């Protein structure tokens, strides 16, 4: 086998492994800019993966399944939002419990029902697909991958350019000041969680109806945590977060592909690299990252001293 063909294989599988992370990372990035660190990305992705296959089973349409995945993710976002901003449960607790619940529920349901195999259509870009090395990996994909082209700029625009994003950033950096200015901090964060859920849902659903074509127990296997690591690694900047996703995706692809191609790799090191990199990034690049000032801190308005 030629080196080019090897590279193409790794690249192609790297992109497929990156896509679900990238969708979810867009959502988590946005939520964290608003101060909402939600560990429940895993639940959103897994729930959506299951939902998409289940709905595709019922309707016979993989695209409908994909859409349902988005909705399920958003629903989990709403639940997380209610738990943290209404009932004031610690956000980590809410996230971990939701993860446990969705893992249990999907595992239970997939054991009961016989779920079929569903794939959304493949889309290849004429002309470009014939490019050497890059053509195959980049331009022959299941169609939802191309949604990234829309979603990444949209996420950037929402956070950096929209009115809502401005308010969201204010809520993430200094909730008390935002409140003084008339921004409803917790509502804003709740909305961010819904958006995060929808995108994480898209990522999870893509994994199921786009890549694998079926659902198996715990199929996201910790990808949600990987997404959180990517946002941290990216220093709360969208570009670097996505670069992190690509890096993690490629690492995963190398781990799977390289041994088959005759290389020896330390698979444990590759699997743990994302978490290690995230921790190192937090330790080393504290001045260059853009960690929101009030990340994971709940906000409640305090009455001042009478006076």
């Amino acid at each position, binding site marked *: 086998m030629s080196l080019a063909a090897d590279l193409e294989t790794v690249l192609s599988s790297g992109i497929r492994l990156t896509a679900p992370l990238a969708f979810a990372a867009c959502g988590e990035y946005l939520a964290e800019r608003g101060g909402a660190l939600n560990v429940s990305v895993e639940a959103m992705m897994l729930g959506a993966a299951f939902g998409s296959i289940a709905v595709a089973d019922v309707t016979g349409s993989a695209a409908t399944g994909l859409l349902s995945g988005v909705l399920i993710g958003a629903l989990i976002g709403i639940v997380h939002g209610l738990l943290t901003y209404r009932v004031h449960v610690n956000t980590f607790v809410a996230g971990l419990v939701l993860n446990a619940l969705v893992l249990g529920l999907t595992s239970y349901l997939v054991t*009961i029902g016989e779920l079929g195999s569903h794939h959304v259509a493949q889309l290849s870009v004429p002309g470009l697909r014939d490019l050497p090395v890059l053509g195959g990996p980049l331009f022959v994909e299941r169609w939802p991958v191309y949604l990234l082209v829309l979603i990444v700029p949209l996420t950037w625009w929402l956070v950096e350019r929209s009115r809502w994003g401005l308010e969201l950033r204010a809520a993430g950096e200094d909730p008390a000041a935002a409140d003084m200015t008339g921004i409803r901090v917790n509502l804003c964060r709740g909305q961010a969680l819904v958006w995060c859920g929808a995108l994480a849902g898209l990522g999870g659903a893509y994994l199921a109806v786009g890549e694998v074509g079926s659902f198996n127990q715990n199929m996201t296997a910790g990808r949600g945590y990987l997404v*959180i690591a990517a946002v941290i690694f990216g220093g709360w900047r969208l570009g670097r977060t996505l670069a992190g996703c690509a890096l993690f995706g490629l690492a995963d692809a190398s781990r799977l592909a390289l041994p088959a191609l005759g290389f020896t790799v330390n698979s444990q090191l590759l699997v743990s690299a994302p978490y290690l990199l995230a921790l190192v990034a937090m330790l080393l690049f504290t001045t260059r990252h853009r960690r929101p000032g009030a990340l994971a801190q709940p906000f409640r308005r305090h009455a001042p001293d009478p006076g």
Partner: protein
Amino acid sequence: MTRLEGGLRGSAGVAYALQNRAVAGVSALAVVAALALSGMLIAVTGGSPGAALRALVQGSLGDATAVSMTLLYAAPLLLVAVGACVSARAGAFNIGQEGQVLIGALAGAAAGLRLAVPGPLLVVVVLLAAGLAAGAWASLSSLMHELRGVDIAVSTLLMTFLAQQIVAYAVTTPWLLQESRLGAAAALPQSNKVPAGGLLGSFGDYPGLQVNAGLLVGLTAAVLMAVALRHTRWGFRLTMTGLNPAAARHAGVPVGRMGGMALAVSGALAGVAGAVLLTSPLSTNRLQPGGSLGLGWDGLLVALIARNRPLLTIPVAALFAMLRSGGGFLAATGVPSYLVDVVKALLTLAFVAPALLRRAA
């Protein structure tokens, strides 16, 4: 004025008691709701809730073997949960127990396999090594917190995934802990068996009923920690640190060191749980990548339900252990054993919400 105020205080005291009772009521309701939801899930998916409940009870308490199994599961759950209580009470939110369990098991296996310690003393060394290693592992999080203000919940969580890979690496690397096989048979990703001297035996000799020494370790930890938190200066200061660090500092408590110590203790207890798993009949007494059986996550849930009170973890851990051991018997009724995971999560949700409602009040 004093009398008037006394009256007011009296009513506040009553209100407090009422509130406590209300919380208990809400919690009871929530449990009923959680169980009802689980039952509905079974019914909707074509199973029989009654049969499932019977299977759960049968499988966890039905006979001496079942009870033995339940008690076996209870031990590591208790240890993890008691540890989670300690760190949460000190205000250091440790959610990386799953990884700490694995690191404990790893260190325990290494000690058991590498150290030439005679007979029954070995098991003590194994448990100690596990506790020390996992305590040190958890302390890395406090170090990162001290150095760069890295959130403890985030770092303990991320380090869980590192721990999983470290264990996987250790058991796939011949010069580390991978099993040694004679002949050509491919070695599996697991360690050698811990020698008999390093294993936790049963104590007592009841016909058919095995009560593993691990349970004794767990119960001792729970009781000792309850006593320590309530009756020692250390516990008093730790509680103060968790509830109001500023006031604790004012009262002369070295707040940073207190939190770090609580996190280390929490990790150490999770590590001992890992060693108990490794050396009790729950496992094949070999270190394996999935060897924690998810008990680290479960133990955290136990502590959440027990509201960080070590003594309350005993019944909750027993309940979770029953769900574990009973879960294996569910399949016969046509209900997937994953049901118990749903039940556990719903129960936690049911308990967490009202507990925090009171905080908010």
